[in-house]
């Protein structure tokens, strides 16, 4: 599964994207797995109210299932316009 990070999430984790092998059932499970890895992940995901997630380029939520998903992106609330 391709995991992508944007804006300060990318900066905190230190990489723009990575391939993650996981059996996580939901986005929440994936976050728990990542946080357990290293302090920089733990810091980046410490407050999920400040985060948004997209599954295969569609905005989604943290309870969403990951079955069949190829691309997960984490980023702060958008500030376009």
């Amino acid at each position, binding site marked *: 599964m391709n995991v992508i990070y*944007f*804006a*300060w999430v990318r900066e905190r984790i230190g990489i723009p994207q990575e391939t993650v092998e996981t059996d996580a059932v939901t986005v929440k499970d994936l976050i728990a797995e990542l946080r357990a890895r290293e302090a920089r992940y733990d810091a980046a995901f410490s407050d999920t109210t400040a985060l948004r997630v*997209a599954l295969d*380029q569609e905005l989604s939520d943290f309870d969403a299932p990951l079955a069949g998903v190829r691309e997960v992106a984490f980023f702060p609330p*958008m*500030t376009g316009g």
Partner: protein
Amino acid sequence: MTVRVQSDHFDAGAELNCFAQGCGDIGAVVSFTGVVRDTQGNLREMLIEHYPGMTEKAIKTIVDEAKKRWDLADVLVIHRYGPLAVGAPIMMVATAAAHRAAAFAAADFLMDYLKSRAPFWKKEVTEQAETWVAAKDADEDALKRW
């Protein structure tokens, strides 16, 4: 519908003139241009990051929703990414319709949704610091108007 996501500069006036040329029954054209502001007087540049692929899809979804809600002859969306100087145009929306109310409402709607639903992130770079612009609760609340 024209959607362009680009790092290049664009000329809002030239875009306005190109837009909606000979595309049916047009009585009203509304445009919005967003410009890089130097609110503190120390901005070196604005950096805009985006999510290639999702950006185009998200904008098209927003434009399709606008076309469902209002009778629009045409819609233009241009959004830049990369480094932008103070005073540079960041993005532009234009709507063409037979009637004024539809053109105004659709442009306002597009801006509200592009602000909170298109995957762009702004970072302000000054001599002292680089700061990600925080989303405002008011921006999210604005979506409830529609």
